[in-house]
C-alpha cells in the first residue's frame, strides 16, 4: 500500500513540473507548481515512512527491456534513509525557491524552464536513490546532472555563470563515464544488472582494486572529496541560491549514497582501502575548512565547508571500512552511524546557511562579505537563524553538529581500543585532525558571522526585506537543528534501524544488543544541554533584573570617538594570520598599494584572493596540455582535394601491407 503512495506522490510532483509549460501567467503557474510539488512530496514522504514502518523489501517492476532486463525499484534501508533525507530537505528548498523567484518574475524574467527543471530534479533524485537496476540508476544519475545544470544557468547572461555551469556539467559527465565502466564491469562479473545481486567475494575478482577505485572516484567527484572537488567552488556561487542550498544539502549526499553502495557491492576486506578513504577525507576536511577561511565570497565559503563536512562524513565511512576489514561489528556501526548522522546534520544546517546567504544576496546583490556588515540591526531574526546554523556547523555542543562529531570521536577511541599495534597513533592523528577542523570551523564561522552581521554596515543599508515564507523555511531548519541537538535519541534509533537493514552491517552477525552497547550513552546530553540552556536564561534574566540602569553610548575604542565602518576588521585581516601557515597550498595572492609618504593621500588599497590548489595545479595544466597536444595534430587539416586522394592511397597501401604481413 505504502509503495504506491510513494509513486502516487512522484506522479503528482512530475505533473506539477509540467504545469509551467501549460499555464502562461507567470505568478499563477509558479504558485501552482511549487505548492503542488509540495503536496506530492508530502504524499511520497508518507509513502516512504509507511514502507519503513511496515517494511517491504520486495522489488517493484516498472518495465522490461530485452537488454537491461527488469527495470525495477527497491526500498532497502539505505535508500529509504536517503529518500527521506531528500524529501524532508526539499520542503524548505521548494518554499524558498518560490519566494526566490518572485522578484525575478516581477522583473519579467521567464522562469518556466527553471521551475520545471527544479521540480523534475527532485523527482529524479527520489527515483535515483530507489532505483535497483544499474542502467536505470545511470539514467537518473545523468538526468540529475542535466537538470541541475539547466537550473544552474538561471542568470546565464553573466560569463562566470556560463563558465561555472560548464565546469560542473563536464565534471559530472566525467564522473558518469567512470560509473559506466564500474557498472559494466560489475555486470560482466555478476551477470545481472540489479544492485541486489551485485555482491562479490573479495579475492575472486582480479580487478577488485580497479573496481573500488572506479566506484570511489566516480562517486567521489560527485561528493566533492578533495582532489576531485574542483567543480564545487565554481558551481555553487553562480547557481541560484535555492539550487545551491539543494545542491550542497542533498545532491552531494548522493555521492555518499553511491560510495555506501560501492562498499555494499565490494565488501572490502583489505584495511588499506579504509586507510585510503580516511586519508582522503582527512585532507578534504582540513583543507576544505582552511580554503573556506581564505574566501571572501559567502557561497564559495559555504561550498568549501560542504567539502569539509563531506570529509568528516568520509572519516566516518573510513572507520566503518576498517571495521569491515576486521569484521568487527561495533566499529562498523560506530563509523557508519557517525557518517549517516553527519549527513543528516549537514543537510539541515548547510541548507539553512545557504538560504540565509541567498536572502542577503537578494537584498544586497553582492556575495562579497567584505561589503556587508551590521545586518543584525536590520534583520535580527535572520542573524539569529544564521547564528544557529553556524554554531551547529562548527560542532558546538548544544546543537546537532556536536552529536555526530561526538560519535566519530568515539569511533576513534573504540578503534584504537580494539586493534593494537599502530592503530592508537593513527587514531590519535585522526582525533587531532578532527579537533583542528573543529577549531578552524569556529574561527571561520566567527569571521563570517561577525563580518556579515555585527559591527557597522560597510555599505549603507536601507530596508532589508525578508518574506514570511523565507522566515518559515529558516525556522523549520533551525528548529530541526536545536531539536536533534538536544534530543538525539529518535534520530539515533532511526539510524540504528537503517544500519540493521544494511547488508554490510548485518552480515557480520546480527545480535543487535552489541549495537546499543557500542553507542555512547546519549541520555546525559539531553540533561546537560537542557540545564545549560536553563542556566543561561536564568543568568540573563538575573542580569536584566539586577542591572537597573544601562545606557547606550559611543564605543570606548580607547578614547577615539569617531569610529567609522572602514576602521573595522575585515574578513581577510581576520583570517590573515591563519592563512599564512598553508599559504602555498591556499595560493593566496595579495595585491596591495601602500601609500608611502608621511601624510598618506587616498588610493591605497588591499585585495587578497585565494586560488584553488586542485584546479590551478592539477586540472587546468592537464586540460591545457591535452588541448595543446590535440591541436598539434595539424597535418590533417589541409583542405585540398589532392591531399584527400593521397589519404585514400596511403590508407589503401597501409591496410594492404598490414593485411599481408600480419601473421594470422
Amino acid at each position, binding site marked *: 500500500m505504502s509503495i504506491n503512495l510513494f509513486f502516487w506522490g512522484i506522479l503528482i510532483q512530475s505533473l506539477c513540473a509540467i504545469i509551467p509549460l501549460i499555464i502562461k501567467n507567470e505568478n499563477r503557474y509558479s504558485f501552482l507548481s511549487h505548492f503542488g510539488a509540495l503536496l506530492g512530496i508530502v504524499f511520497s514522504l508518507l509513502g516512504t515512512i509507511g514502507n519503513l514502518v511496515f517494511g517491504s523489501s520486495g522489488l517493484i517492476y516498472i518495465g522490461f527491456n530485452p537488454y537491461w532486463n527488469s527495470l525495477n525499484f527497491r526500498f532497502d534501508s539505505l535508500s529509504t534513509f536517503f529518500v527521506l533525507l531528500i524529501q524532508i530537505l526539499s520542503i524548505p528548498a521548494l518554499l524558498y525557491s518560490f519566494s526566490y523567484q518572485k522578484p525575478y518574475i516581477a522583473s519579467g524574467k521567464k522562469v518556466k524552464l527553471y521551475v520545471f527543471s527544479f521540480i523534475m530534479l527532485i523527482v529524479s533524485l527520489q527515483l535515483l536513490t530507489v532505483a535497483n537496476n544499474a542502467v536505470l540508476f545511470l539514467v537518473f544519475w545523468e538526468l540529475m546532472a542535466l537538470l541541475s545544470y539547466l537550473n544552474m544557468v538561471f542568470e546565464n547572461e553573466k560569463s562566470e555563470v556560463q563558465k561555472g555551469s560548464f565546469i560542473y556539467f563536464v565534471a559530472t559527465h566525467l564522473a558518469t563515464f567512470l560509473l559506466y565502466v564500474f557498472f559494466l564491469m560489475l555486470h560482466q562479473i555478476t551477470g545481472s544488472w540489479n544492485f541486489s545481486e551485485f555482491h562479490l567475494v573479495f579475492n575472486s575478482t582480479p580487478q577488485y582494486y580497479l573496481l573500488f577505485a572506479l566506484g570511489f572516484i566516480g562517486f567521489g567527484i560527485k561528493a566533492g572529496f578533495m582532489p576531485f572537488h574542483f567543480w564545487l567552488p565554481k558551481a555553487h556561487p553562480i547557481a541560484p541560491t535555492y539550487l545551491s542550498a539543494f545542491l550542497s544539502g542533498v545532491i552531494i549526499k548522493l555521492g555518499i549514497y553511491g560510495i555506501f553502495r560501492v562498499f555494499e557491492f565490494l565488501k572490502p576486506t583489505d584495511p588499506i582501502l579504509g586507510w585510503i578513504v580516511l586519508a582522503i577525507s582527512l585532507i578534504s576536511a582540513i583543507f576544505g575548512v582552511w580554503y573556506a577561511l581564505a574566501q571572501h565570497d559567502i557561497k564559495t565559503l559555504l561550498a568549501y565547508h560542504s567539502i569539509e563536512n563531506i570529509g568528516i562524513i568520509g572519516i566516518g565511512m573510513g572507520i566503518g571500512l576498517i571495521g569491515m576489514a576486521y569484521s568487527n561489528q561495533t566499529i562498523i556501526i560506530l563509523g557508519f552511524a557517525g557518517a549517516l548522522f553527519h549527513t543528516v546534520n549537514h543537510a539541515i544546517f548547510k541548507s539553512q546557511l545557504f538560504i540565509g546567504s541567498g536572502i542577503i544576496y537578494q537584498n544586497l546583490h553582492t556575495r562579497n562579505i567584505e561589503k556587508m556588515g551590521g545586518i543584525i540591526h536590520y534583520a535580527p531574526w535572520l542573524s539569529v537563524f544564521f547564528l544557529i546554523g553556524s554554531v551547529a556547523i562548527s560542532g558546538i555542543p548544544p546543537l546537532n553538529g*556536536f552529536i555526530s562529531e561526538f560519535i566519530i570521536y568515539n569511533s576513534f577511541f573504540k578503534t584504537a581500543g580494539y586493534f593494537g599495534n599502530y592503530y592508537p597513533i593513527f587514531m590519535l592523528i585522526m582525533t587531532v585532525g578532527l579537533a583542528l577542523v573543529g577549531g578552524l570551523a569556529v574561527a571561520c564561522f566567527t569571521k563570517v558571522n561577525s563580518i556579515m552581521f*555585527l*559591527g557597522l554596515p560597510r555599505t549603507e543599508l536601507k530596508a532589508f526585506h525578508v518574506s514570511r515564507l523565507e522566515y518559515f523555511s529558516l525556522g523549520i531548519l533551525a528548529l530541526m537543528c536545536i531539536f536533534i541537538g538536544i534530543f538525539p535519541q529518535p534520530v539515533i534509533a532511526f539510524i540504528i534501524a537503517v544500519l540493521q537493514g544494511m547488508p554490510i552491517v548485518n552480515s557480520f552477525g546480527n545480535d543487535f544488543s552489541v549495537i546499543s552497547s557500542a553507542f555512547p550513552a546519549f541520555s546525559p546530553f539531553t540533561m546537560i544541554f537542557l540545564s545549560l540552556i536553563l542556566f543561561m536564561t536564568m543568568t540573563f534574566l538575573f542580569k536584566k533584573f539586577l542591572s537597573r540602569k544601562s545606557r547606550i553610548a559611543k564605543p570606548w575604542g580607547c578614547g577615539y570617538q569617531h569610529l567609522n565602518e572602514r576602521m573595522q576588521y575585515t574578513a581577510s585581516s581576520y583570517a590573515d594570520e591563519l592563512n599564512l601557515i598553508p599559504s602555498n597550498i591556499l595560493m593566496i595572492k595579495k595585491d596591495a598599494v601602500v601609500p608611502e609618504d608621511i601624510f598618506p593621500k587616498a588610493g591605497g588599497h588591499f585585495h587578497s584572493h585565494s586560488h584553488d590548489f586542485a584546479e590551478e595545479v592539477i586540472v587546468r595544466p592537464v586540460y591545457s596540455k591535452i588541448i595543446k597536444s590535440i591541436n598539434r595534430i595539424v597535418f590533417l587539416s589541409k583542405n585540398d582535394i589532392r591531399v584527400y586522394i593521397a589519404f585514400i592511397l596511403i590508407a589503401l597501401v597501409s591496410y594492404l601491407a598490414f593485411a599481408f604481413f600480419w601473421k594470422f
Partner: protein
Amino acid sequence: MEKLISVLIYLIFIVSAPLFIGIVNKLKSRLTGRLGPSIFQTYFDLKRLLRKETIYAQSASFVSRIAPVVSFSSILFAGMILPIGFYKPLISFNGDIILFAYLLGLSRFFQILGAMDIGSSFEGMGAAREATFAVFAEPIYFFTLGSLAFIFKFTSMYDIFHSISLNDPSFIIFIIVSAISVFFLMITETSRMPVDDPNTHLELTMIHEVMILDNSGLDLFLYQYSSYLKMLVYATFAADFFNPFNVQNHIIGFLLYIIILLILIGNLVWIETMMGRFRMKNIPRYLLFAASIGILNLLIYTFFNK
C-alpha cells in the same frame, strides 16, 4: 551522599576561583618587592562591578548582551566535568573529554562574537588573535588527553585520571611530559605571561583583555568571573595529572589537591616574573611544540610497551 559531597566541592570550587588569582597577584607583587593588593582584592573588584552601570555601544546588538552569559555558563558547566580534588565530578560519562573541549569552544565562540559586535578595530584584533591561538590550543588538549585516553582505553575524565598510578616509573615520564604541554595550554588559554600579559593596557599587545575592552558593569563582572573560573578550571585540569599513589581517603586527597595548586601558583608566578613576552608571530610555533610533546608519550607507550 557521594553526590552531595561533589556538589559541595563544586560550590567551593566556584567560590574560590577569584581567590586563586588573588594569591597569584599577591605572590607576584611580593616577588617583585611590592606589598601588592590583598588576596581578596579580586572579590572587591567583582563587588564593585556589580554596582556599576552597564554601558552598551551604539553599534552593539543583542549578541553583546547574551555573549557574556553564554561564555560564563559554558565555563561553569565545563568545570562540572573536572574531578576536583580527585572527587567524582558532577557530570562524568564515556566521552566527556570531548564535551569538555567543545564547551570551552562554545564560550570562546561567543566571546569572540561579543568582541566583534562592537565593531572597533581593537576588539577585532583581539578576536582574530584569540581565534588563531584557539586553533592550536585544541590539538594540544587532544594530543595529551587523547594519548592518555588511548593508553588507558577510558574516555571519561574521571576514569583516566584515576587510572594514573604514579607508583609505576614509566607513568612518571608520561605525567611529566603531559604536565609540560598542559601547563603551556593553560598559559595560552588563560592568557598568562609568556603568551599574553594579563595586566598590560597597551591595546596592541593584549589578546584576552582587549576582547572585553568595551564591556562594563554586569557584563564585565561576568567576563571577569568567567576568566577567573577558566584559570581555576585549567589549573585543576593540570593538577589532576598528579594523582599520587591513588589515595582513597577524600580529605587527604583534597589537601593534596590544594598543595599541588599552590605549587602550580608558584610555578606560574615564577615564570611570569622571570620571562618576557613571546613575539606574537612565533606563538603558533611554541604551541605546535607543546602539541608535539603530547604525541611523544603515546609513541613511548606503543613502542616500548609492546
